[in-house]
């Protein structure tokens, strides 16, 4: 299992900027938004949590289709499925590797991007907390979408259509947590919901993903 994680991380690094790509994309989104809505700091500050969340969503989506596609093409997925490791574990590790290469850098870099977006100073802590709690769910749900579309030639667009509706609860509670936190309002409900969704997703969705992979390899 650890060997698989190390292999995936190593592959991501050698494929060229495994960690950097998501970040660069995130930076582009953050750069483009002021061109679209105007440079006023007040407006930017108000929409900053939403933009940062949307950026995280899209950056995550960007690399989803490669989670299983490469292993499917070169036959390693067949070999992994016949190897003495549970496929549920393989799927979870794949999601973890995806999170480490896309989600984690975003969490770490969020303060910098918050600065660019005039994020309110009270919101920084909540922004990082929300991203740290929410992005693992994005990766695990993304693996599910990738598992459904692994055998398809042009699965990219379909993958987005399948995965994005599943992101709605995480997005809502994540953005709401930042908004409420920044205004010193009660944060219990969104905090618990965000963490609860992530925990439940990590516990249950890998079984669905593994089932989908098995069906696709049949």
């Amino acid at each position, binding site marked *: 299992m650890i060997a698989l994680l190390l292999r995936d991380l190593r592959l991501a690094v050698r494929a060229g900027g495994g960690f950097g790509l998501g970040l660069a994309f995130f930076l582009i989104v953050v750069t483009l938004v002021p061109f679209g809505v105007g440079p006023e700091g007040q407006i930017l500050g108000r929409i900053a949590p939403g933009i940062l969340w949307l950026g995280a969503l899209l950056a995550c989506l960007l690399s989803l289709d490669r989670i299983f596609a490469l292993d499917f093409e070169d036959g390693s997925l067949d070999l992994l499925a016949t190897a003495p490791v549970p496929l549920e574990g393989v799927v979870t590790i794949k999601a973890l590797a995806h999170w480490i290469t896309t989600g984690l850098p975003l969490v770490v870099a969020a303060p910098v991007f918050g600065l660019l977006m005039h994020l309110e100073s009270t919101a920084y802590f909540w922004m990082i907390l929300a991203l740290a709690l929410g992005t693992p769910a994005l990766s695990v749900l993304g693996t*599910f979408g990738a598992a*459904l*579309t692994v*055998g*398809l030639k042009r*699965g990219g667009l*379909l993958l987005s*259509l*399948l995965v*994005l*509706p*599943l992101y*709605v*609860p995480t997005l*809502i*509670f994540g953005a*709401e947590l930042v908004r409420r936190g920044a205004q010193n309002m009660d944060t219990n*409900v*969104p905090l618990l*919901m965000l963490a609860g*969704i992530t925990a439940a997703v990590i516990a249950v*969705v890998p079984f*669905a993903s593994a*089932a*989908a992979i098995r*069906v*696709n390899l*049949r």
Partner: protein
Amino acid sequence: MSIWEYANPVKFMKTSSWALPWVSVATVISLAVGLIWGFFFTTEAMNFGSTVKVLFVHVPSAMMAINIWVMMLVTSLIWLIRRHHVSALAAKAAAPIGAVMTIIALVTGAVWGQPMWGTWWEWDPRLTSFLILFLFYLGYMALWGAIENPDTAADLTGVLCLVGSVFALLSRYAVKFWNQGLHQDSTILKVGEKDPLDPSYYIPLVICIVGFVLLFVTLLLLRTRTEIRLRRLKALEQRERMA
């Protein structure tokens, strides 16, 4: 005699071809009676004016939009557990009907919202939830369309339907939390409470709901028959290629 006998395609084709004329006639009658009654013979309501007549198309379509997804969830489960092909094909056949019902609910809602709330679209929890439901329908149908192998497609869409159902519910809760909204609560279940729907609206509404349900059954039977034939056609073509 078990209910699962109807899951046999041959038995299903026989039974459905016997049932179809009756169901379609009942559909036409109930829809005609309900809609004509609702459109021509109901009076204006106190705070809604004549827009209350929208009730008779808006409420049934909204109910069907949700119920069809629930029906797809049940048939998907039956397929995943008992491997009855008709069940999977019925779920496939139901999805476009559900999507159309969702569109109707959204369109009539927008048309009704314009005079009542002064806007065509509001990011109200109910409206937003229906939009999300529509996205789920789209994703489900797109996945069916994208996969060549019919059994693979049935399995994967079944799993998607299960996961999607949980997230549709979760989104409903999240959206409610996110925005408290203008939409009033559902009126139909308020009978006996302090603000019940006037009986003069209640009867045509029930007839309309029955009409929509029957219409769904008719279309579902027709579409499932088509899907079974299509499945048979594909199997024959494949066999011909192999021979």
